[in-house]
């Protein structure tokens, strides 16, 4: 197990390294002089020279990258051009809000997805199954921003049950979390349903029935764990995606998370902040993936965690 995790972490570091190169190059990939873009057309030549030197852009590329990565490893992601505060502080300030939203959204999607999936499989081909499938199709095809606006219109504007986009309390959290949850739940539901139908036709389910076990034990102890093996992977990927900032939903609900931060940084051409956000999201994504792999091997004992590596 230890070896397994060490291998995973090592390969994760390699990927993060790759992301760092990409985010570093971003500033050079943009056509034109990045400094002029940052400062705008009215910048004086002195300002340009000053900022160029400040950003180290006058040095060779390799030296620049070396400087960049050394700083990053020491926790210095640079300074936001707009606010003048360290990028890492900006990010860490916003990250908890994104985590809050992502976790609640995921919770909703898991609860809806798995329970509807089980229900649909249990009553396969019945009206319940068809309703669940219809829900899944709707969930996939409705754009999330549209659903978000719809929910705001009904529950905030018409019914006044929830506030309109002005805080980060629990009541403010509900609508964006539901929006994220409903959209993410459709995939989980379909996977659970199809997995359940397949698992229930397995020999070991017949064995469980031959033992005289009650239905809920067969369903939850014997079937669900086998069904969850692929579902957990998807849940993990979704969490990673949600943590990377749910740009659109955060915008609609004016939620002060990473997504809003990233959009703001892009609009104000705050390159250090953009670079930092990209790198940070990458690290989060990879960490979640490692956790999912570990969890996966706990759920499915057949996954080899031996010294052969992954």
């Amino acid at each position: 197990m230890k070896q397994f995790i060490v291998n995973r972490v090592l390969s994760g570091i390699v990927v993060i390294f790759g992301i760092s190169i990409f985010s570093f190059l971003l500033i050079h990939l943009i056509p034109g002089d990045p400094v002029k873009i940052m400062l705008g057309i009215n910048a004086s030549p002195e300002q340009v020279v000053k900022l160029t030197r400040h950003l180290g852009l006058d040095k060779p590329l390799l030296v620049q990258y070396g400087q960049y990565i050394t700083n990053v490893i020491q926790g210095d992601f640079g300074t936001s051009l707009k606010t003048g505060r360290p990028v890492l502080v900006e990010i860490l300030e916003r990250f908890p809000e994104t985590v809050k939203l992502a976790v609640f959204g995921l919770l909703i999607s898991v609860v809806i997805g798995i329970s509807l999936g089980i229900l649909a499989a249990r009553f396969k081909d019945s009206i319940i199954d068809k309703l669940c499938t219809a829900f899944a199709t709707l969930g996939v095809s409705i754009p999330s921003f549209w659903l978000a606006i719809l929910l705001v219109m009904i529950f905030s504007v018409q019914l006044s049950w929830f506030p309109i986009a002005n805080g980060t309390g629990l009541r403010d959290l509900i609508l964006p979390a539901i929006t994220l949850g409903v959209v993410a739940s459709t995939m989980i539901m379909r996977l659970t349903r199809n997995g359940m139908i397949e698992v229930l036709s397995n020999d070991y389910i017949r064995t469980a029935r031959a033992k005289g076990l009650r239905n809920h034990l067969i369903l939850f102890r014997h079937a669900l764990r086998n069904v969850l093996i692929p579902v957990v992977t998807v849940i993990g990927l979704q969490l990673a995606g949600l943590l990377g900032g749910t740009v659109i939903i955060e915008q609609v609900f004016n939620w002060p998370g990473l997504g809003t931060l990233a959009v703001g940084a892009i609009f104000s051409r705050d390159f250090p902040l953009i670079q930092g956000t990209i790198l940070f999201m990458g690290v989060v994504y990879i960490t979640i993936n490692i956790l999912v792999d570990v969890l996966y091997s706990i759920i499915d004992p057949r996954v080899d965690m031996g010294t052969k590596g992954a």
Partner: protein
Amino acid sequence: MPNILVVKGLTTQFEGEKGPITVVDQIDFKVKKGEVLGLVGESGCGKSVTSLSILQLLDKNGKISGGEVFYNNVNLVSKSEKEMRGIRGKEISMIFQDPMTSLNPVLIIGKQIGEVIEEHEKVSGTVVKQKVVELLKLVGIPRAEEIYYEYPHRLSGGMKQRVMIAMAIACNPAMLIADEPTTALDVTIQAQILDLLRSLKDELDMSILLITHDLGVVAEMCDRVVVMYAGQVVETTDTRTLLRKPRHPYTVGLIQSTPHQSKGERRLKSIIGQVPTPDQFLQGCRFADRCPKAMDICHSTIPPLFELDGQTSCRCWLYDDKKEEVI
């Protein structure tokens, strides 16, 4: 000896595209207390469906459409699903053909055996664990305490089948249904498993319904035999008589197509043709078009089971005393 299981006119149908398909057609047999009854036939003759029907473990599209199954003189067919749960695993247990797929891959062995005891007996967790370890030792699994915590994929096929057997005998059932218990195993392991079943039968005073297509297994294990063909019983007799003096032409063919070392024959005989699927059943005797002794009547009318002596009955017009009159 009293009968422990009596199957009367059992008929099982499956939902087909063109209406219900009768897979098991008015089966009759009895299992006496302490006896091993063999249920023999080719693949697709309805042996497994018969056994699943007894415990009502059929898939959703299959159902018992007629007949009765008496266990200790109580009709199981009229029992509710809840009542059947009390019978399964406690009174009548079952082991299956493929131990590789019959155990849940994500649960430890100990848990899978223990839950039978938890379900049927009111005992504490520590007692359950103790019992499971004893059961593992009883079925000949070494390092029982360690194997308790193992997952199925770490065990060999033979070991898995031993685990299945431990699971089946966990609550001391009076009746064990073994559906091709050795078919998926290596020959050497087959013998071990059969030995184990035989010794457990004596030790625990069980009756066994042994489903197999292997006449070698029958000769080794069974007291009496029921031969099935295309969903019907074609011959019922004791094992000695079956092997020495088979009556039904199908049984004769079955025995002739079994390899025999001592005879030194070059070519193995086979029965021409194939077992008909339920939608191809003939109007008359279902074996008629493969039968070397088929007569005119065989193609038009299904023969009844003729009682030959107290022990033997045979579904073949050859044994009709009033043959002349009928023809």
